[in-house]
């Protein structure tokens, strides 16, 4: 019979040593030879799409003066060819629908700032509300086409956001237990098992559930469906900006001699005026403006712009085609000083 101290030691040893068996399992089963991701601290090892070298070459061939970067909010507002004509400069659009700020950062780094663009003057980022500092996390795979073999700065920022001050502990734990490699083959088995019981074609069922049952147009406003969470921290610039990608974007721009502009787009207005926004969001926007302007960036907030009435919108926060032409015109006029 073990004494109380030995018994505790046995339990603690079992807790931390038994998971080492995952390494043995990984060696015996498929999926063990997958390489680490370009974000080794936050992503499971997985196969990846290659970096889009052709896109980088195309941008270099154009040698643009300005790059407009963002998701569909930028793509549905700015016509790069029209802006090129209006400003008598060369403008490229680096748009990717539904992309996160990490994608914009990598596009800026790998296609603009470190792509030998000798005539580059400015990069213009379009964003919604608190997207720049609070929506930093990424879905695996969405960055593949703009990411190089390793992206250590992005890895650091993402791991700091996800794991706080203890990202090194997570890194060591991943290496010691190799649990991500186990997850790679075990999770699909678990998720597929009920589908195999229910349907003769589990892959088709899983695809139909994702694309039909949970189709985007079947979802309601997320704010209404989530349980109320009492957190005011998310809209605080001071507590989020240093763990965001903004300092890194600013550093890269300084390094490459590129001016930065940040345009906060107006969300879909109401019939009788601009869309409502909370006091917290107004305060956040003011603090974000102060932060960016103090670091030499240009900032503009589209909220309340009389040139963007409801009639200029198509679906959601997207402008219609006439609205896009008008927006690009007004953009060239309004920001002429930045675009000189």
């Amino acid at each position: 019979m073990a004494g109380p101290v030995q018994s505790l030691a046995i339990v603690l040893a079992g807790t931390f040593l038994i998971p080492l068996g995952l390494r043995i399992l990984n060696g015996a089963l498929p999926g063990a030879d997958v390489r680490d991701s370009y974000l080794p601290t936050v992503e499971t090892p997985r196969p990846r799409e290659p970096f889009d070298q052709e896109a980088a070459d195309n941008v270099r061939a154009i040698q643009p003066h300005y790059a407009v970067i963002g998701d569909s909010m930028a793509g549905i507002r700015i016509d790069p060819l029209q802006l090129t004509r209006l400003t008598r400069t060369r403008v490229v659009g680096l748009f990717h629908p539904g992309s996160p700020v990490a994608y914009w950062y990598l596009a800026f780094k790998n296609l603009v700032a470190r792509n030998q663009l000798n005539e580059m003057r400015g990069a213009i980022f379009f964003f919604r509300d608190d997207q720049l500092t609070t929506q930093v996390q990424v879905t695996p795979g969405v960055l593949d086409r703009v990411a190089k073999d390793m992206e250590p700065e992005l890895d650091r920022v993402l791991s700091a956001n996800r794991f706080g001050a203890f990202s090194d502990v997570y890194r060591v734990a991943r290496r010691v237990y190799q649990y991500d490699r186990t997850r790679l083959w075990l999770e699909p088995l678990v998720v597929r098992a009920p589908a195999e019981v229910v349907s003769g074609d589990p892959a088709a069922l899983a695809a139909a559930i994702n694309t039909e049952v949970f189709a985007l147009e079947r979802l309601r406003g997320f704010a209404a469906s989530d349980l109320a969470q009492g957190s005011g921290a998310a809209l605080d610039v001071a507590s989020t900006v240093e763990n965001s990608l903004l300092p890194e974007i600013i550093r890269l721009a300084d390094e490459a001699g590129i001016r930065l502009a940040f345009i906060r787009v107006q969300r879909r207005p109401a019939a009788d005026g601009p869309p409502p926004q909370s006091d917290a969001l107004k305060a956040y926007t003011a603090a974000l403006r102060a932060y960016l302007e103090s670091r030499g960036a240009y900032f503009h907030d589209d909220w309340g712009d009389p040139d963007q009435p409801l009639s200029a919108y198509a679906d959601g926060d997207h402008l219609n085609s006439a609205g896009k032409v008008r927006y690009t015109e007004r953009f060239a006029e309004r920001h002429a000083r930045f675009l000189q």
Partner: protein
Amino acid sequence: MIFHSLDFIAFFAIMLIAYWRLPLRAQNVLLLVGSYLFYGWVHPWWPVLLCVTTLVDYWAARRIFELAPARRSPILAPRAPTPDPRRKAWLWSSLAANLGLLGFYKYFDFFVANVAAAGAALGWHMSPLVLGLALPAGISFYTFQSMSYTIDVYRGHAPARTNFIDVAAFVSFFPHLVAGPIMRATNLLPQVEQERRFDVAAVRGATVLIVWGFFKKLVIADNVGVIANKVFALQQPDFYVLWAGVFAFAIQIYADFSAYTDIARGVAKCYGFDLIKNFERPYLAAGPADFWHRWNISLSTWFRDYVYIPLGGSRRGPWRVGANLMMTFLASGIWHGASWNYVLWGAYHGLLLVLARGFSAVRMPAMLRPLRMLAMFALTCVGWLMFRETEMQQLLADFQLSPAASTALDRDAGLYLCGLTLLYSLPLWIHDVCEEFVRLEVSAPVAQAVACGVMFAVILVMRSQTALNFIYFAF
């Protein structure tokens, strides 16, 4: 600070090492400072409210106690209540301060919005003053715990304490501060005051509880929580998909809440404290009364002792008992949140209890117990739909859904989501069934080591990639 963060694990370890090197008085000071640090980690102003609540109840309890006649002992022994009006005034002051603070943060916006809506229905249009205050986590829990101290002193069940540090450490004790279990002064305060010894066997038990708690939270609750969140994000869910989501939520809320309790109990054990068990396999309950003896036990007994019994309890006629039950459960519903769906949920459970009392004379054969368990679980799930769906229009639409209108894909999707929920929750069901029927307890160190090692490995591999907050933080 949340349990499933390395911030907490570092805090816990540092506190524990320092704690067992100190004498009792210093231990309590450290517990107090540590608890305030824990609570104010993200929102430094939250401890201010905690401090106000503690000061109010410390002072009110002392005044109530001092105003009681026939002091028998200088060390403030318990005594019977007297009809002295000043004692009652102090009690009401304490209750008003506690409930006022809770009401202001939790119910003010709900109240003014409903007054405005009622006014609009009568033709008086007004723009309500909505404060939009963030609800401090755990305020409902520590307010109730602190109030129970004052009430117990008033009733003569406990003496008022003169040592403020002890009272403040009791109210703020960090393991259970944010989501319970709600401990009574008669149980926890003596533990704060008495000498505690480091017990290696208790730490071993605590390790098993903590690992099991993390397993339930990270592997079960968070994975099935993602399913529930997806279903409840649908505008018009189908019958099968909706009820699969409700099933997922039923598992999520039990795994999540009981995980918090287990971790809290384990952490408290390491510091030499025993917190009560808050869950006793609730989904194996065979009826409404049985369910409430097993679910959130500390809250249901709080409402029993401080609301139901003072209202008259079961001592009067059946109509009055029914009314008492309904009032108690309406109060329990509104305690959960400032929204009509919680009121409805409370009323639903009150009604179930009233109906169950009506049929209590009917004796069921023991062999029907599994059927009664299944029926009770189904009734509980109906309640969880009311609890989870915060929009009343949507709730009405949900109850009108019919399986006949479902497509084959919706049916398969519902079955798939149920199957996935069942798969993730299998360890929970096995654990509860074993405890309930086999009374199986893993106590040998090697068996515990294997169980903890396997659970830790599964946590590492299968924990949800979507980190969800503990549900009861929102209450």
